[in-house]
């Protein structure tokens, strides 16, 4: 029976150099879907408790989604999973591009690596023939160069995922690239790949991916596509910036409809919010200490969406995406082109470091993509170093003569080069701000902003407390793609799932109500987490699901592709199961969930004296407890209780 998934995974033991195919029973897919759920199911038992994330016991997995290749839209996301060396928790990173269907076309829903290879290797699969090939000649080359060499050798039909020098040098903030600059950056999984001496995966499979009812999937896709193609010209980008100002000044907020965000994505990409976001306090400034007062429109103009768009010569679509929020930009100088810098990269390397140089944003984006380093964590670490320098904790002697004043672009570029090459101070900073502060000491810890070791993304919990809650409570701390109050408004889950609070589009409410800790807020946060687990199991893109559950029919697609007849509530239960399993993974590895709490500064303790988030504090303790209680985890420790585990059909040790 064809159900959209391939029903098999590949286990590669790099120490022995052997391969094992494993059949996955249908019940597993029904309980965990594919993608992130399948990975959590497989890795929970197989990574031994207390395993060294950079040792042979850790398992690194590349998984595709259940809906990938079935004809549904937005299903081009692949995920890297494993135990994160950055946080010590469950680690996953998500990436678009064309690699996701390539995994399935080789006949697998996931490819997992254990052990450590003696010499650098890469995995090559073609026509069911699996080989580990020597990668000594590729070691040390950057991600894009390596991809070009491998495509040259194995033909244009191959798809490549690769680490850059940052991953090879075990930088804990490194990621894994594909499509010449799309990167699964978070959780430091590039270092895990580097520790296994696995340089790349080259997949060239031709297997067909067959859903249960392709015509039904296509019918849903056609309907969804009509919403995606509906576009109103939004005018010059200064308009979005001024809306940001307006949202800041007004005492009320408005529930968002995903169609608005979709139109921004279509016109400018994620960078459409480059100026709007700092204006209304969504983006942190000056290492989370500053506000829109420090980063006014005059300064944020350096990342004006229209300015960025001018350099774009073609839109970039991931596999099966009708939206195309990415782009390719032409550059002058060392590199001739780059993927359009995303919102997160621009704000992390811009406002967070007070860097006003537009050219440097493009250059650093390309540089970090080639090195395979996370732009969010790299930007946040540089911002932290800059604050330490301003506070006198770091001196010119420590920084090898780099004058790390706020906004000193040339020093920033030099520092990032050092981080990639692990030279001098760069060697300390290449492992993220928490590890660096531990090495440097001298009170530098209080300037770090992280959750469980991972730097949070450029969405401020003091503006939308939902972000802060998810940074703290998720089994992968510090991630912004798992939930927020804003996301809940856009997902519109109440239209399909019973018992969820309604938040009608464009409904106006007082800003103060965002900062309470009520039952409603808990339900919203839990619904986001559960739904995003379903989305990551299906391999869908979060931006696609922002259109709302009726326009992007995740549950209907799943039913059509698999032939199941599950209700939305049943899918949410699957999401809950995956979430609980990931949390149980953390507990098994000795992680105290309370320790993943976000740094005080980012929670508004003490509150900011000025700017968009003036006087705002997130009631995080109550929110965390409520969230844990909702999931049936112990509200004081955050550990899943035995009854909860048994109720979800999870084995209790």
């Amino acid at each position, binding site marked *: 029976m064809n159900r959209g998934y391939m029903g098999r995974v590949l286990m590669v033991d790099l120490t022995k150099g052997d391969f094992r195919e494993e059949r996955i029973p249908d019940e597993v897919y029904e309980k965990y879907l594919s993608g992130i759920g399948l990975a959590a199911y497989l890795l929970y038992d197989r990574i031994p408790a207390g395993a060294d994330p950079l040792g042979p016991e850790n398992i690194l997995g590349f998984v595709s989604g259940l809906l990938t290749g079935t004809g549904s839209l937005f299903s081009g996301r692949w995920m890297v999973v494993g135990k994160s060396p950055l946080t010590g928790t469950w680690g996953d990173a998500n990436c678009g591009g*064309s690699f996701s*269907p390539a995994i399935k076309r080789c006949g697998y829903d996931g490819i997992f690596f254990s052990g450590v290879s003696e010499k650098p290797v890469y995995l090559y699969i073609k026509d*069911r023939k699996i080989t580990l090939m020597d990668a000594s000649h590729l070691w040390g080359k950057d991600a894009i160069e390596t991809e070009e060499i491998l495509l040259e050798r194995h*033909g244009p039909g191959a798809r490549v995922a690769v680490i850059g020098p940052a991953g090879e040098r075990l930088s804990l903030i490194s990621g894994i690239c594909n499509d010449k600059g799309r990167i699964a950056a978070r959780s430091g999984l590039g270092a895990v790949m580097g520790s296994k001496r696995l340089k790349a995966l080259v997949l060239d499979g031709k297997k*067909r991916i067959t859903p249960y009812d392709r015509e039904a999937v296509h019918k849903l896709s056609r309907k969804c596509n009509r919403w995606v193609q509906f576009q109103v010209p939004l005018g010059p980008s200064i308009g979005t910036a001024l809306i940001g100002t307006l949202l800041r000044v007004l005492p009320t907020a408005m529930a968002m409809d995903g169609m608005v965000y979709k139109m921004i994505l279509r016109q400018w990409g994620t960078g459409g919010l480059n100026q709007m976001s700092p204006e209304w306090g969504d983006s942190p400034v000056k290492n989370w200490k500053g506000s829109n007062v420090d980063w006014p429109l005059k300064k944020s103009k350096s990342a004006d969406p229209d300015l960025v768009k001018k350099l774009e010569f073609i839109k970039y679509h991931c596999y099966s995406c009708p939206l195309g929020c990415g782009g390719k930009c032409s550059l002058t100088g060392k590199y001739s082109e780059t993927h359009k810098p995303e919102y997160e990269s621009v704000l992390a390397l811009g406002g967070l470091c007070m860097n006003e140089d537009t050219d440097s944003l493009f250059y650093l984006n390309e540089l970090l993509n080639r090195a395979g380093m996370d732009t969010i964590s790299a930007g946040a670490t540089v911002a932290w170093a800059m604050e330490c320098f301003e506070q006198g904790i770091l001196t010119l002697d420590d920084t090898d003569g780099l004058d790390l004043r706020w906004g000193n672009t040339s020093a920033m570029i030099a520092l990032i080069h050092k981080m990639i090459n692990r030279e001098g101070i760069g060697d300390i900073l290449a492992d993220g701000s928490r590890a660096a502060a531990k090495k440097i000491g001298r009170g530098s810890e209080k300037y770090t902003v992280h959750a469980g070791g991972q730097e949070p993304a450029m969405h401020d919990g003091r503006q939308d407390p939902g972000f802060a809650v998810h940074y703290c409570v998720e089994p992968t701390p510090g991630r912004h793609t798992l939930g927020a109050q804003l996301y809940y408004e856009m997902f519109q889950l109440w239209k399909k799932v019973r018992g969820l609070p309604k938040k009608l589009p464009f409904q106006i409410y007082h800003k103060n109500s965002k900062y309470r800790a009520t039952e409603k807020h808990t339900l919203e946060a839990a619904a986001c987490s559960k739904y995003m687990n379903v989305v990551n199991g299906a391999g869908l893109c979060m931006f696609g699901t922002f259109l709302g559950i009726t326009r992007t029919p995740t549950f209907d697609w799943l039913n059509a592709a698999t032939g199941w007849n599950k209700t939305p509530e049943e899918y949410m239960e699957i999401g809950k199961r995956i979430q609980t399993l990931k949390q149980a993974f953390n507990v098994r590895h000795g992680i105290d969930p309370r320790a993943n709490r976000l740094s005080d500064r980012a929670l508004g303790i003490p509150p900011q004296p000025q700017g968009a988030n003036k006087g705002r504090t997130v009631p995080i303790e109550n929110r965390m407890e409520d969230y844990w209680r909702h999931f049936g985890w112990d509200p004081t420790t955050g550990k899943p209780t035995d009854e909860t585990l048994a109720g979800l059909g999870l084995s209790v040790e």
Partner: protein
Amino acid sequence: MPYTIIDTCTGCGACERICPTRAITGKKKDVYRIDGDLCIECGACGRICPSAAVKDRFGRICVMVKRSQWKRPVFDRDTCMSCSMCIDACPANCLELSEAKGPKDPHGHPRLKDERACIGCGFCEAECPVGAVTMLVPVPKDESRKSKPAAEAAR
């Protein structure tokens, strides 16, 4: 159910050369065989076999078609959403994304990169959710030039 080769095979090797997944193996002048695990049912072997020796998934003998008469994809740029599903679906890697036309249409669209590499399997058509790909028998160039004014006159 994969394709199979029956005893009438003369061992010419045409199917082995065209198979995009290298599922067909054999010795010249001997009966070739298809590895069912690798076969993706594209049907290229059946269309090229001169001795009617290939059975399709339903057990029917495939009929040979002249290569110039094989269907090729034609793309409708207006309905196309640039999602590149067709490019990924193509087992012969003969599709590619075009350059953007300019600020009015900044998206790349699929096009046939290598006409001779196309095996006419129609997977691109089958996997396109919006029906922007149609498989058509190509019209010879001089004929299409002749028929163009006629088509315009008909409008």
